[in-house]
Each structure stands twice: as structure tokens, then as C-alpha cells.
């Protein structure tokens, strides 16, 4: 039994080490694959492993996320700094990705942690006051969950708005440049300049 405890400790220590080396990237496009991430980060870190997070709980269309394991903690810090100082864009513009340090609870397949209290008790209907209290607490938790979901929805809508705005801005800009280009090509700009008496000489 002693060895299994030691083993467990060791496994968990390894896991903690891994957590330190891993960064969590989200706001990823669903099109991004692990090779894209590897290539993206190759300038500052060597990627050991990429694990995509599957969305099981959020009933909305959310961006992808991944846990990226790097060679060591130093590289992880370098990558984080890079991505937080400048908008780092992976696969598609202009929405940048976000990177933060990984935390143990992000990993789905984590080893058991020693020393976690798992005490449980049954609250029967007979213990009236306690039962009522527990029921209220449960309702509270449910309400909080709903609030959380509402916030998520709200944020996704905001993001949509921003994206629309930016797209319009981009389109407008594009049209402007396009028009300028066309005029230049067609030479009508020289006519206009002549008409208004403005010289087109480049300075």
C-alpha cells in the first residue's frame, strides 16, 4: 500500500509539472488544428502535445480551446508573454487568441489528488430544517448556474456585434481603396485633377 501511495504522489507530482508547462489557449477558430498551433508557437516554444477541449456543457456556439503542453515552464512563460503583449492571431483575422496558464482542473484526465476531503453525508427529509436549507442551497446553485449561462450568452452576443461592426468597417475601407484603385487605373483621376486644377505630382 505504501508503494501505491508513493506512486500516486509521484503521478500527481508529474501531473503538476505538466500543468506548469501547459498553457490554455482559447478563442480559437474551430478550423485550427494541432499542427497549426504547433507551427504558430514554434517561434518561441516547442509544442509537445495539443489537447482540444470538447464542449460538453455550454449550449452555445463557443470558440475552440486547447491545452498546449510545451517543453518546459520557461517556454510556457515566453509564449504567454508573447501572446499577451501583442495580439497573437492564429488562423484568421483579426480576432486574437487568448492564452493563460493552465490549471489542474482544466485537464479532463487528471490523476487523483491526495488529501482531498471527500466526506459526504445524506440529508434526509426527516431532518426538516436541514433539508429545507439544503434544498434552498441547491436552488441557489441552480440559479447561479443560470446566471452564468446568461452572462455567457450576453457575451457571445457582444462578440457578434463587434464582429459585425468590424466587418462593416472593413468592407467600407475596402470599397474605398478599391474605388481609388479603379480611378487610378482608369485614369479618370487625371481628368478630375485637371478639372479642379490640382496637380497630381507626388511629393
Amino acid at each position, binding site marked *: 500500500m505504501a508503494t501505491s501511495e508513493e506512486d500516486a504522489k509521484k503521478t500527481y507530482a508529474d501531473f503538476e509539472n505538466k500543468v506548469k508547462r501547459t498553457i490554455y489557449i482559447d478563442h480559437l477558430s474551430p478550423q485550427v488544428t494541432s499542427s497549426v498551433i504547433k507551427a504558430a508557437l514554434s517561434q518561441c516554444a516547442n509544442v509537445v502535445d495539443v489537447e482540444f477541449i470538447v464542449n460538453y456543457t455550454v449550449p452555445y456556439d463557443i470558440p475552440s480551446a486547447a491545452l498546449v503542453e510545451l517543453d518546459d515552464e520557461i517556454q510556457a512563460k515566453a509564449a504567454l508573454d508573447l501572446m499577451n503583449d501583442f495580439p497573437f492571431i492564429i488562423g484568421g483575422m483579426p480576432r486574437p487568441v487568448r492564452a493563460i496558464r493552465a490549471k489542474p482542473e482544466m485537464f479532463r484526465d487528471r490523476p487523483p489528488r491526495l488529501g482531498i476531503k471527500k466526506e*459526504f453525508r445524506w440529508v434526509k427529509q426527516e431532518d426538516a430544517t436541514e433539508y429545507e436549507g439544503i434544498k434552498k442551497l441547491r436552488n441557489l446553485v441552480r440559479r447561479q448556474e443560470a446566471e452564468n449561462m446568461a452572462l455567457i450568452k450576453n457575451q457571445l452576443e457582444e462578440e457578434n456585434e463587434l464582429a459585425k461592426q468590424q466587418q462593416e468597417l472593413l468592407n467600407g475601407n475596402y470599397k474605398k481603396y478599391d474605388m481609388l484603385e479603379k480611378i487610378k487605373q482608369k485614369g479618370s483621376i487625371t481628368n478630375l485633377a485637371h478639372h479642379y486644377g490640382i496637380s497630381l505630382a507626388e511629393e
Partner: protein
Amino acid sequence: MDGSNVNIQFSWGKKSLKRAKGGAKMDTLFYDSFTFDNVKYSLYDCVYLFNNGDPEPYIGKIVKIWQQNQAKKVKILWFFLPDEIQNYLSGPVMEKEIFLASGEGIGLADINPLEAIAGKCTVVCISKDERNRQPSSREQAMADYIFYRFFDVGKCTLSEQLPEKIAGLEVNVLLNPKAEQITSCSGREVLGVDRKVLNGPVTAVPLLQSVVKEGESMVAAIPLTQVAVKEENVRKATKNVPKPTENVPKAIESVPKSTGSVPKPTDSVPKPTEIVPKPTENIPKATQKVLPGERPSKRVKSSEDVAVQNMTSDVPDRTSCPGPLELASRQADRSKWFKMPWDLRLRNADQQGTLVYIQNLDIQFGAAEIEELIRDALQLSCIAKPINHPTYDDPNNGKAYAIFRTKSAADTAVSKINSGLVVCGRPLYCSKGLLKVPKPSETLVGHLTICNLKIGQRQREEQKKAVSTSHCSQPNTMEYELALDWMLVREKQEKKFRILQKKHKEERKSFASKIGK
């Protein structure tokens, strides 16, 4: 995973000395051993077989191996898990104990296509009978299972006494093999096997499919009788032998008996994907009332399902690779099932009604802790995985999916947990079934495209490549400003989330203190 084109390795071993040829047309050949998917199986080895739709495989002993025309078949003598005969059990059950079928009747042994075999396992007999070679304590500790009792399938009784014959075989061949014949297999060897096995089942599925189509009538016939009798004989936790298959890459106790003509139990290696074997004791726990007629079609359909899912599942493949390494900790693995891809298992479990969604756990809990908790609190075993999404989910509220063995177990769990299980001051609540999550869309909100652009063929390709390159946005581009907009929005979002989560935490704390009074 491109399963459909790969063929699983197979080769025959020694021909049987006892029965060389048989069958009415002398077209049946009997064998003593074979190698399947690079694992050697011999007569009297203990093996795992997978039943479509069940997360757990069955355990059986190979008692006959033969080939008739093009079909390779094995006759399997079944072992029962304590769960399956719990109605007839009384008294304590040892750890890792299983029961060998004996007597006459349905449920004793079945003929299956050889491809149904999912791997080997070790079963050690600890009966004190003089005919049985007593295993060393090391053997006993390292075995996957032990048995010393027999379950008579005709009389439905349990007995410790060795019968003279089982399924027409002398009972000697079913006990422990002679000591010299035990081979230990190195972990590495098993690892190698395992990885191939990883690819194996996927291909086994198309193989089996064709077998099913040809032998559909035969297959259909067997479950018919099986199901019919089963339903009479067994209630609840069925005699179906979906069994956990943790294979230990430790000493494989090959049980070559002196006569050596009966396939032996062999150490099976966990398979991450589901095989569609045709063991006839196939009542998926959830659907015991299924009409016999439905069953074969169900199996064929799911096998196709499995094939497709296996080929498209990418992440599950990764998560299932740790299989061999986890074998070492059998203690914890006892209630773990075959390493099927988690997503596939979720879907199956949802179909069978064994999936439960638990909320309000401590987010620190890992899979093992949740499983242990369920075991302690409800005396039910399950597989669980925490499923919180790191970006969006409330860190105060840990969520997990738990797959139970039977539908009734899942139902009991739900009602019990909802009625008042409190873990470290947190009342858990749960519901059944899979959450509806929309499929992620093709492109990310916020990835803009320039429309109205007439792009030539080459340019389009370049643009495609451009999508997959990544860079840091430089301050002199328009893109930079847009990107900054996004970062601003994100910061705001994070702040909002933080405030909300803090508020939740405070609410909980104040509530708890109020209750405490």
C-alpha cells in the same frame, strides 16, 4: 482513423491433436492455437469478448477452436461476474472473483466468430480441490480474476465443488495449468500488442460486419434462444457477461492443459474501441426486454456506427492511448471498463440510459475521486469524468458525466443524489442524459473575410494557406486596431465573469453560514 482498409493480423497455430477434421463434409479443421492481431491465443486461454452496445466485455474460456469453410469459430465457456448472478449469490464475494459456468443449459457456452475476441486475461483458480494446482500468492495477486466457485446454469445454483465435466470437458483442463507452462509477458510486449489492438478493433468491425451478413441467420438464431432463456433465468443484473477488462501486462498464465485442445483464457489487452462480437449472452443491460428479432439488426447498425465513429474520432484516440500504462494500477482499475473512446461511450451510455450528469461538485475533483465518491456513497460503480469548460463554466460548480453499469443503477443514483447527497457542504444535483450542445460552426465569430474580391485560383490557394499561418499583429496595420478592439472586449468579459463568480462565491458562503446557525 482509417479502419476500413486494414486487416487484422491472423494466423493459425498448431492443429488439434485430438480432432483433426470433422464436420459432415470433413471440411472443419480444429486447432489448438492461433495468433490474432499479434496476440497468441491457445486452447483454454481466458479471453474477453465484446458485445455490441455494452461498455463492458465478457470473460470466457476458449474451449474449442475451428475453421469451417471460410469462417473461424471459437467455442467459449463463460465466466460470470458477481453482478450477473447476484440474485443467486449469498455471502461474501472475494475481490476479483468470478464464477465458472457449469451444468447444462443456455449460458454455459457459446460459439462465436473468432474475430469477436477482444483480448486475453488471466484467471486463476483458487479452489482447494486436489486436482487444482494451488497458485502462488504472487500469481493470485497478479491475476486479473480468480475463481473457485461454479454456477450451474441449469439449476441456477452456486457450488464450490468441482463438477466432473463441464461442457463435455474434463474439469482438469479448466483448472490452473502446470507451473512450467506459465509464461510471463513483459509489459513492453503487451504494450506493443495493445497499440496494434488499438487499431485492431476498428478493423474488426468491418470484418465482423461481413461475417454478420453472411452468418446473419446463424447469429440471429443464437441470440434468439439465448435471449429467450436468459429472460427466464436471470432477472436484473443479468448473466450477460459484459465484464471489465483490465488486462494486466503481468504473468500471463497460459493454461495449456496436457491435452491442449481447448482454447484457454488468455490475458486480454484493453481495447479502446468497441468490437461487435457475437457472444450469444448478449442482453445489453438496458434493454433486457428487447425482442429477439430486433437484436441482430441492432448489432449490425451499431457496428457501422462504431466503425464510422472510430474513423472520425480523433481526440478519443489520444485519451485512450494511456491504456497500457494504466494497467499497472489494477486496484483502482477494478471498476474501469475497456478503454473505449470516451465520446463514443458517452453516446452509447446515453442511448442505454446509463448516463448521468452531476453538478455542483468541487471543481478540484478528478475522475477517480468522483468514482470513489459514488462508490462510497451509493455502493455503485461507474466511470466518471469531470467536464467543465475552463473558459466559460462557473468554477464554483463542478460538473461531471458518470456512466453507470445499468439503467436501473443510473436511475437509483439520480434519485438518491437528488434526494439529499451533500459532499463537503455542497448538495449535488444530477439529471440523466446528454446535454444538448450545438456543433461548433465553421468559422470563428470575428474572423473577417473580404468579400467581393475576385480571386484567381492560385490566389485562393494562397489565401487558404494564409488562414493557417499565424502571427503577431504589428501596430502599423489596420488589423492591429481591430485586434485591439477584440482584446478590449475580452478584458471586459473577463472582468464581468470575475465579478459574477465572486458574487456567487459570496452568496454561497453567506448561505452556508446562515444555515450553520
